[in-house]
């Protein structure tokens, strides 16, 4: 078995004295793992940094075994990310969400494309709320891909398409303000940037993380016994501590 693909490093774990087990999100082969001979060496360590783009060759005798990667550096957004604590937190959150919410070996080109685009967004802009909104949208797309998509088009109670401000935690369907107000304590807030083309605010992206996090936790992280990634919680804390937007 052999395939070639582009991939983005999600995580690297040292294996033995000089080897490493690399986890990547690839363009056409989904999330994949493999052993990299010499992956912990002085030469390879800078290449195998989370967030780096690689040209990969994966080889294995059997499709289901761990396999071995040969890696070549393709592109690195890290030069613009490493010097900023906020960017590092955003990237760690993004990579951990993709690592914990995708199936291994299942091709998901849109996820790869979004991951690549959001990494560039984090590297090229200074807009934590914008990065956060992009991650929340990706989380909603990951839920949809796994069959637990949120239905945010119409109100579950009245069928109305406007003034949708809540989501039912039971069904994942939107609820309008008039129908949801009596039960607002039990409903999850629906940030406007998920249903309309509006610029998100700091509070809205935090609401967005709470919304997608609730369903990711219930449908995916609990089943995988992984729990919500710590890096995600740290990025949300970082967003909370930012000075409120005017």
């Amino acid at each position, binding site marked *: 078995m052999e395939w070639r693909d582009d991939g983005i490093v999600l*995580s690297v774990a040292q294996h033995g*004295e000089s080897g490493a087990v690399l986890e990547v999100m690839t363009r056409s082969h989904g999330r994949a793992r493999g052993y990299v001979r010499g992956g912990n060496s002085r030469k390879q360590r800078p290449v195998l940094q989370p967030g780096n783009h690689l040209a990969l060759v994966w080889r294995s005798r059997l499709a289901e075994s761990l396999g071995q990667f040969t890696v070549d*550096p393709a592109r*690195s957004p*890290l*030069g*613009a990310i*490493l*010097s900023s604590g906020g960017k590092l937190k955003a990237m*760690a959150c993004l990579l951990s969400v993709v690592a914990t919410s995708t199936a291994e070996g299942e091709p998901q080109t849109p996820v790869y494309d979004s991951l690549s685009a959001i990494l560039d967004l984090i590297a090229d802009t200074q807009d934590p709320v914008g990065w956060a909104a992009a991650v929340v949208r990706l989380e909603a797309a990951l839920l949809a891909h796994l069959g637990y998509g949120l239905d945010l088009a119409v109100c579950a109670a009245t069928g109305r398409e406007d003034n949708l401000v809540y989501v039912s935690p039971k069904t994942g369907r939107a609820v309008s303000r008039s129908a949801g107000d009596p039960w607002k304590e039990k409903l999850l807030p629906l940030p406007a940037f998920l249903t309309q083309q509006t610029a998100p605010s700091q509070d809205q992206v935090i609401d967005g993380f709470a919304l997608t996090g609730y369903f990711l936790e219930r449908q995916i992280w609990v089943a995988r016994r992984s729990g919500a990634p710590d890096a995600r919680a740290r990025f949300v804390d970082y967003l909370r501590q930012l000075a409120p937007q005017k």
Partner: protein
Amino acid sequence: MPRSHSTDIDGLIQLLAKLPGLGPRSAKRAALDLLKKRESVMRPLARTLEAVATSVDFCAQCGNLDTVSPCHICSDPRRDAGTLCVVEDVADLWALDRSEGYKGLYHVLGGTLSALDGVGPDDLRIASLVTRVSEGTVQEVILALNATVEGQTTSHYVADMLSETQVQITALAHGVPVGGELDYLDDGTLTAALNSRRGLED
């Protein structure tokens, strides 16, 4: 399987094989070599190992390895006690001190934060760094951690922890190494070098 050597030699080979860079075969070669040079290498090595294991310990102040605590760097009056350089490992401390470009004191963290390896803030010497800086002598903390994602994540965490102490916090620059050619540099280093470009001095 027929045994070609004694269990003592086996034990020596197994211990040598635990050293970095040595596998079972190279450990066997090293063991044979030691036995051949019994008086000139093996016995002095055994005596030195015993002496170093007894006398060398971590400096209670900075985490360096030395026979005395505080170590010779911490107790050197010629060093600038107002500057503190934070490094990941003792090897990094030795590398920085070798360059002789720095005359302040050090603080060894003992690793970097790593979710994958289960290393959290409590596993590193961050609390003792905060205590040391809070004592008031230190005016500048230089974060000299590796330019890796884990190194820089730790850097920013340490900076957050020190934010209430009012000291100046700086970090090492990332860029073109001395004698480096642009053509051979990776994208990340080139971008970092461009971002931290500076005016030319006379």
